[in-house]
């Protein structure tokens, strides 16, 4: 029988206010197997941990139950403390008497009784615990960054800086991402390209960074320290190693109708193109949808013009497989589709544009060479109206329930820049709230209002319609308590942003959890904000939640620090709570291998001794403990019960069930 010590934490008043911790500790003393029981204000404090360590030694405890907060919070803490006192860390079980008890029940008697049941249940489990030892697995000292925007670039640079190899996989033909499309950045108004392109160049020049553009992650196998990733290198039809970026091909391409994605489809580009001047790599790519040669077989002009013979129309997608120790997801965002927001008339009126489109219209490298001209007739707009929260903070099914966070600031930026460059322009902004927390952010917004005379109207826009060539923006002014209609030349919609949709597939491949808005979930919102719940997978940028450039860069660097910390290790401790097959009972039926998502189960022929000197060779399952993630799917598939999960064994769970039902 185990010698069990029970420690009931007050958690200050968090537990003690509702649960009679002293009574719990006292009653638990009577449980068979319990040789020590105590209560303490903060078990997680140094003194609390010391109490636990001392008791383990003094009472020769073989099992420990801590009645405290969620095991997701401090299980590791108490396991570590136990280990330092010489007890196997897996002999510690947590009874969650805070989140699952004191915080949700008001009645002290009721909560105390429940706490007793929860502690007894943990005792029932720990009675059947067995010491577990973590195995070790090696770490591949290379990182993968998925997404080549500013988040990916920063993470890659930091990881490379520490001396580790890192690959950037970018689905577009160039790295740079959304930031490359921006004109100026708030709140300093420095030129986006000017601060981004040097980093892009650094990436290209680093001997530690391998940039795989026009590539996508196809498959991920393995686990922390040992990922095996299959990458699709999409056919570019241009040999990257040969192309010099001279653009002769672009000039000679007869197909010029392809929409220019980089310019938010505001103008067109040739079928063979380099997305923008500072693209990295500065290599052309053929759009197979537009290329006459690829579609009809007739043309081949670019191949004729190319002086280095880089064009290859027969190129096929290629697959490469690489090993990584860590993966950073930095897949970024896109503006949501607003075609279905009928009230804004985005699809009917060319002069109703999104903010990202405005960025391109104001950018010197954009379709209008930086002169603000409206798309419909190329005239300079005199009255510009901005509409905030288009699809953000929207509880209808049309939009997104969250705040996109960056719109207030970039709208202030746009308004300011327009007023500065074209002082004769009238600028109105319809807003719900203006949210500008952040260093120098509120100051920036106030400058827009106070110095630049931007007209901020608190109210929502109900309707935008075209009347005699003017865009009539009809909205309410909640401060004046009146309906207003502003005849505008250009309307800019601060469109909500959403995670780049390809993140869904990536999340599935990585087994990283994703929330209902497709943002990747962090392991803990406060304490592990850059880690995914899947070990070895880190999150940077908007794929995790809306954020601006400074935040993105901070998060990317934080990711890099985590990755560096991981890659600096030669080996990792593996989770010992893995499946194990009792070979004497295994039938070798293969059902378990069929449900294993990790390919952790293989079969071996094994000889068994029967009675009377006879032997029998049987096919039995073998679980690779380094590959098994411990989900337990196999244990239920196994009819004989040969497959069990260490740490969550069937008998342990059933004894918990019994204890709960019989309390």
């Amino acid at each position, binding site marked *: 029988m185990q010698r069990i010590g029970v420690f009931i934490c007050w958690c200050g008043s968090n537990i003690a206010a509702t649960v009679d911790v002293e009574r719990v500790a006292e009653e638990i003393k*009577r449980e*068979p197997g319990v040789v020590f029981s105590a209560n303490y204000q903060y078990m997680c404090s140094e003194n609390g941990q010391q109490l636990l360590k001392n008791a383990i030694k003094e009472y020769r405890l073989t099992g420990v139950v801590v009645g405290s907060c969620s095991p997701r919070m401090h299980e590791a803490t108490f396991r570590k403390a136990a280990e330092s006192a010489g007890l196997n860390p897996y002999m510690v079980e947590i009874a969650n008497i805070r989140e699952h008890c004191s915080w949700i029940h008001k009645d002290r008697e009721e909560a105390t009784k429940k706490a007793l049941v929860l502690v007894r249940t943990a005792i029932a489990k720990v009675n059947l615990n067995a010491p577990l030892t973590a195995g070790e697995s090696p770490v591949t000292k290379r990182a993968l960054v998925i997404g080549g925007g500013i988040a990916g670039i920063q993470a890659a640079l930091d990881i490379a800086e520490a001396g580790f190899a890192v690959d950037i996989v970018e689905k577009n033909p160039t790295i740079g991402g959304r930031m490359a499309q921006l004109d100026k950045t708030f709140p300093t108004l420095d030129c986006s390209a000017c601060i981004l392109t040097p980093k892009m160049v650094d990436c290209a020049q680093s001997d530690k960074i391998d940039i795989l553009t026009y590539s996508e992650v196809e498959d991920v196998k393995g686990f922390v320290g040992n990922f095996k990733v299959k990458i699709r290198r999409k056919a570019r039809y241009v040999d990257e190693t040969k192309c010099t970026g001279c653009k002769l091909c672009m000039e000679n391409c007869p197909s010029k109708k392809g929409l220019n994605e980089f310019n938010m489809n505001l103008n067109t580009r040739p079928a063979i193109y380099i997305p923008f001047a500072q693209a990295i790599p500065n290599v052309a790519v053929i759009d197979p949808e537009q290329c006459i040669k690829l579609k009809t077989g007739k043309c081949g002009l670019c191949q004729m013009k190319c002086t280095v013979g880089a064009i290859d129309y027969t190129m096929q997608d290629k697959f490469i497989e690489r090993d990584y120790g860590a993966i950073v997801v930095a897949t970024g965002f896109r503006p949501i589709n607003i075609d279905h927001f009928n009230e804004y008339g985005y699809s009917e009126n060319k002069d109703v544009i999104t903010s990202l489109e405005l960025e391109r219209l104001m950018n010197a490298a954009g379709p209008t060479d930086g002169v603000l001209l409206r798309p419909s007739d190329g005239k300079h707009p005199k009255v510009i109206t901005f509409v905030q929260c288009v699809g953000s903070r929207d509880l209808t099914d049309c939009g997104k329930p969250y705040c996109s966070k960056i719109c207030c600031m970039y709208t202030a930026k746009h308004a300011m820049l327009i007023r500065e460059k074209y002082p004769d322009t009238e600028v109105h902004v319809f807003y719900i709230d203006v949210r500008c927390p952040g260093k120098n952010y509120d100051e920036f917004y106030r400058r827009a209002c106070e110095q630049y005379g931007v007209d901020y109207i608190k109210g929502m826009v109900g309707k935008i319609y075209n009347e005699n060539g003017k865009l009539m923006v009809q909205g309410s002014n909640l401060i004046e308590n009146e309906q207003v209609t502003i005849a505008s030349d250009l309307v800019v919609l601060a469109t909500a942003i959403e995670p780049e949709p390809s993140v869904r597939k990536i999340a599935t491949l990585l087994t990283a959890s994703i929330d209902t808005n497709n943002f990747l979930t962090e392991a803990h919102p406060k304490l592990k904000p850059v880690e995914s719940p899947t070990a070895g997978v880190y999150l940077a940028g908007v794929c995790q939640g809306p954020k601006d450039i400074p935040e993105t860069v901070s998060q990317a660097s934080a990711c890099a620090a985590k990755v560096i910390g991981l890659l600096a290790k030669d080996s990792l401790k593996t989770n010992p709570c893995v499946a194990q097959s009792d070979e004497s009972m295994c039938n070798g039926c293969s059902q378990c291998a069929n449900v294993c998502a990790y390919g952790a189960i293989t079969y071996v022929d094994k000889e068994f001794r*029967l*009675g*009377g000197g006879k032997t029998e060779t049987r096919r039995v399952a073998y679980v690779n403990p380094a590959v098994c993630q411990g989900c337990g799917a196999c244990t239920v598939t196994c009819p004989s019960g040969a497959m069990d999960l260490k740490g969550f064994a069937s008998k342990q769970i059933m004894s918990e069930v*019994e*204890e709960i039902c*019989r*309390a």
Partner: protein
Amino acid sequence: MLKFKIDKLNELFDTISAETPLAMPLEKAGEADYGRYEKGAKPALGVLKTVKSPKDLFFPQSETLMKFKTEGKNLAVEAPDENVTPFVLFGVKACDYKAFEVLDRVFLADPVDTYYQSKRNAATIVTLACSKPEESCFCKVFGIDAAAPLGDVTTWMDETYLYWQANTNKGESLTEKVRALAEEGGEDAVAKQQKATREIIDKLPFSHLDLSYFKENGTKEIFDRPEWKELSEACLACGTCTFVCPTCQCFDIREFRSAKNEVIRYRCWDSCMYSDFTQMAGGNNRTTQMQRYRQRFMHKLVYYPENNGGLFSCVGCGRCVNKCPQKLNIVKVAKALGGKKHD
């Protein structure tokens, strides 16, 4: 001799059960088994063989032996009440009645199994003679007269009457309680039925099975016969034969936690066909189904008679013959081993 009109039987059962619990063959979901008679129950007296034998009444398939109660870290043992209310067991056939003798020699021998004894003492057994034996019956082989079973009371039944003959004091006192419902007479009808039954029994295919081989040969000779392998080949290792058998008496002791502070220790029928039968800490002395199969028949035909003055621990009820999923049975074993005499 008394007789009860068939249409008065329910009245008879109601009268008995009003005073004493009454167990008898009842129909339940299409099958007949012994059960407690209650008003409205469906007696299955016409059924020749209940699926399980009435041994269930004295040696239930599962039975609480004691309870352990814990109070904090202390343990207390609680024995069950051994005072069993007197009850009447009705409708027992000759073979099943004979089986009680086989069981008594095991459970009532020193040390006495008090759980069994208390129930045995509490019972007044009313037997019912067979009138339509079937091909799987071979009670005659064991000297049993299916037309004249023993018991505290013996009964016979035909289309019109149930005939009633008390044999013991217990039987007499039961008779007194029901006499009001009865008429006198019936000797002739019973004699006529007995004659017919005995004639049929004589013609039954297994009635002349010769078991002398098992008496005339040494244990080792029988044990080592090569035929055991072939005989047991099709055995599924299920426990059907042992659980329907009126004389099988093996049990296992198990425990069940019935409350946070209470454990029930109970016994339940075990089967020598099961792979964990007589499992010991050091393993099992019988590792193959052949060995287990042999054990069952060696016990019935050799070991038990050796220890009980030649009494076979088989009463020829034929339940195993009917119920074995693969149609293996003691008759086939006896013929295969004691072979020549049947050719």
